[in-house]
């Protein structure tokens, strides 16, 4: 006799609880604020993630997809990314620029070269005017994709402003040169000392090339007028532009160096100039129309544009700063300058948003200075490009870099070059161009349960003790061990880093872990929302479930 129960339970897998759902979780990559803010649109999260695995070369390749100047930008970029970093709401921002520099330096040290992406070589030729960051970035992207590129530059060396106006203590010339060499090694033709309108005509450019990218930068100081003397007055030994000062310094030309020097301006160039002056042994006062950092009206945009880090370092080096001050007049003793009369600035910008300081009478002060350096901005020099500058993309001419737009960061130029390259390629292929389609929804720290992340101090590069002793680099790179640790500080905002939370916390075993990541088994997901709630990086969205939306509307329509 075999007694047996007639009914034995089957598996609950036969019952699909997914029907209960009204909302459904969806894994969705977000665009972290660092990348959102990065003018070069680097996928910072992605290359930091590779760095956490110590996959240094892969991290460098990921980075250089957007920016072929990591060693350079890691040094000189004012890293808006770090100001936007969500981690500052936990402890302090990830040291992105130090990581960027670390990877760039490693690439130089180990001699990594850029690889052309696979694909057939292209026949259509592109001319680029200007071998600065925008032009080189554009050339890099095009050359990697098989386009023959020729760059024309009026100067004797490539690099544009990076080469001519960045002091050595911030960017050693050799670093820039090596990164440029690596870019040119992709097969880019570089014609130096070739100014359009002189060595090559606009028509030749149009005839020989299928596309022209104008990235001429801003090589001309914005005019300043005091005592009714235009800045073109070269007779004055006691007044010059910041750009001229930096050019001459970088070229090693002798310059007058009185005991006291005044620098007018609140931007990074002003600070660069001031710090160079300290290295040359003179006292320097920066006269800045805007407010200092931290004592600002950020909403009104009156914070000085120079980077906070640069200002702090400048102050450490003995640079004097006077805020909310404008130049009333230059005080001369004969031809020689004895100082500058300044006055309190009430309003920095006029109602059109233009820099137009209003000075209050009766607030005048005297700042002694034997040399006044005006670092109040620079402009593009369109001489010789009069016709091309009026052309449009439909004419096969693109404009980019510092010469257009307002922002004057080197990374902006890099991003601009990338964008131009993409646009040019799309046009040459006859495809529609949508810039950065990969950009996704942004993510803020409010969407991220930050308690899932341990607090960890930020790693910094060491600061040189003998900083004023010449123009040696002030900030050293990250130590090897610190680099991986610093990369791990990245919160991976909006991008899954496989912490397993969704997998652990799903009450319904509806999150399936795979070797590639996670999948939601919608047959069983009840849509409770715990996975989205507890995802540290905000990678999971709760969307309205399409099936339940249909059911709901059907119920409404069919009472």
């Amino acid at each position: 006799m075999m007694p047996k129960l007639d009914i034995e339970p089957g598996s609950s897998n036969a019952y699909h609880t997914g029907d209960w759902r009204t909302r459904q979780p969806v894994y969705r990559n977000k665009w972290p604020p660092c990348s959102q803010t990065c003018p070069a649109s680097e996928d910072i999260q992605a290359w930091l993630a590779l760095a956490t695995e110590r996959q240094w070369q892969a991290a460098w390749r990921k980075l250089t997809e957007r920016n072929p100047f990591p060693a350079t930008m890691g040094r000189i970029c004012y890293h808006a990314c770090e100001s936007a970093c969500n981690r500052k709401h936990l402890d302090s921002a990830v040291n992105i620029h130090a990581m960027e520099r670390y990877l760039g330096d490693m690439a130089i040290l180990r001699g990594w070269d850029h690889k052309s992406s696979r694909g057939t070589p292209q026949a259509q030729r592109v001319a680029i005017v200007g071998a600065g960051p925008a032009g080189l970035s554009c050339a890099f992207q095009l050359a990697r994709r098989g386009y023959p590129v020729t760059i024309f530059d009026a100067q004797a060396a490539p690099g544009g402003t990076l080469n001519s106006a960045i002091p050595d203590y911030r960017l050693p010339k050799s670093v820039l040169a090596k990164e440029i060499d690596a870019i040119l090694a992709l097969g880019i033709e570089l014609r130096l000392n070739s100014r359009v309108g002189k060595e090559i005509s606009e028509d030749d450019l149009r005839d020989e090339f299928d596309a022209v990218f104008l990235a001429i930068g801003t090589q001309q100081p914005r005019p300043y007028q005091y005592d009714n003397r235009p800045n073109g007055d070269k007779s004055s030994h006691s007044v010059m532009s910041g750009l001229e000062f930096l050019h001459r310094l970088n070229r090693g030309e002798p310059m007058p160096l009185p005991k006291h020097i005044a620098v007018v301006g609140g931007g990074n160039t002003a600070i660069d100039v001031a710090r160079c002056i300290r290295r040359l042994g003179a006292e320097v006062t920066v006269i800045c129309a805007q407010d200092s950092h931290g004592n600002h009206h950020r909403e009104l945009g009156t914070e000085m544009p120079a980077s906070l880090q640069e200002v702090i370092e400048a102050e450490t080096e003995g640079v004097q700063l006077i805020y909310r001050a404008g130049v009333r007049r230059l005080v001369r003793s004969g031809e020689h300058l004895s100082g500058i009369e300044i006055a309190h600035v009430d309003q920095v910008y006029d109602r059109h948003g233009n820099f137009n300081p209003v000075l209050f009478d009766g607030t005048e002060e005297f700042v002694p200075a034997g040399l006044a350096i005006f670092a109040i901005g620079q402009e593009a020099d369109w001489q010789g490009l009069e016709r091309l500058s009026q052309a449009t993309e439909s004419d096969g001419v693109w404009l980019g870099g510092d010469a257009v737009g307002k922002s004057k960061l080197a990374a902006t130029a890099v991003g601009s070059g990338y964008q131009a390259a993409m646009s040019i390629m799309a046009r040459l292929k006859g495809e529609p161009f949508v810039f950065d389609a990969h950009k996704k929804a942004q993510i803020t720290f409010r969407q991220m349960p930050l308690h899932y992340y341990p607090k960890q101090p930020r790693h910094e590069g060491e600061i040189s003790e003998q900083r004023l002793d010449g123009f040696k680099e002030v900030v050293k790179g990250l130590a090897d061990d610190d680099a991986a640790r610093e990369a791990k500080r990245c919160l991976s905002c909006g991008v899954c880093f496989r912490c397993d939370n969704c997998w652990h916390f799903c009450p319904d075993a509806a999150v399936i872990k795979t070797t590639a990541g996670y999948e939601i088994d919608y047959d069983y997901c009840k849509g409770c929302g715990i996975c989205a709630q507890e995802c540290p990086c905000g990678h999971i969205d709760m969307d309205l479930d399409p099936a339940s939306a249909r059911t709901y509307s059907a119920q409404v329509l069919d009472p």
Partner: protein
Amino acid sequence: MKKLLEGSQAVAEAVSLCRPQVVAAYPITPQTHIIERLAQQVANGELEAEFINAESEFGAASIVLGAVAAGARAFTATASQGLLLMTEVLYNIAGLRLPVVMVCANRAVGAPINIFSDHQDSMALRDSGWIQLYVESNQEAADSMIQAYRIAEACELPVMVCMDGFFLTHTFEPVDLPIQAAVDDFLPPFHFARALDPSRPMTLGGASEADNYQEYRSAQQAAMEDAQPVIEAFDAEFDDQFGRAHGGLLQAYRLDEAQTVLLGMGSLMGAVRDVVDKLRDQGQAVGALRLRCFRPFPAQALAQYLSGAQRIIVLEKAISIGAGGIVAAELRAALHQAGIMTPVESVIGGLGGRDLTPEVIEAVFQETTQDEAGATFRFAPDHVTPDEPVREDCS
């Protein structure tokens, strides 16, 4: 070889011969001597079993439930209040179709609290899905333990061996205990196909709903019906092997040509047989029928045995308060269904340990047709035995 054993000892020895792997119990009079003996056997190393001192009868029943579900042969024993405390679990054991074997040392149920014997306790469990065997003697109690495991494991139904408290549990009789090898021969090792085992994961005791709950009950009922021939067959097989049988479902005594049949359960049947002998000697056509197996209720066998009777008296030691005799009521239903319209006299007596002496039983027989019109039962007359000394309490 016969030994003079207390009923509790005899049962304990027989249980021991069945090689239970887990014994769990909570002490209650008059069950205690059974489990004390088993505890001692385990302590002496004579019985290789886990002896679990439960924290209550509820726990004890649950422990044997778990043990059998895990594939071990198990034993427990209780009585009275303890049985009622087990009730929820006993229903559950039956519903899970676990072949648990237990002894109920039948005792009255409070209040008022009373430690002496009647059948009120096990009768309360009649609907729980347990096979119930009511034994008459210590020898039958011992033999029935061995049969009970065989029946339970073959039918996947739990078996309750009901033996009268004190009358059997505390009374010494010569008992013939089989040798171990013979018991091993009769009772194969326990193999439970639905045992909890990671190599064959199975869900036992899940929730069910209206669309399948009834199927469980109908399967239980079918198993109970199927158990009747099994109980008879194993008693016959036992007879073949050990030379003793206990009637299977029913045990008849001098039923030949009997016009009056006295029907009862358990130890009182010894006295009933004495009365039958006496009345037969006086020329009365009287016989006795012992209902050994109350669950499953052997309706057809009863009808066969009683088809020729003109008077049927059911003597029972339990009452369904508000209705009357329980066995009698079921018997009436069975006979009615079989087309036998002989009236069944229901007599309730022996409650709370009161003696059902031959005199009382004879008096019951003599109370012919004294029932009031419409009465479904009567209580047995009091025994008046002034010439006998009053028995001492055994608490």
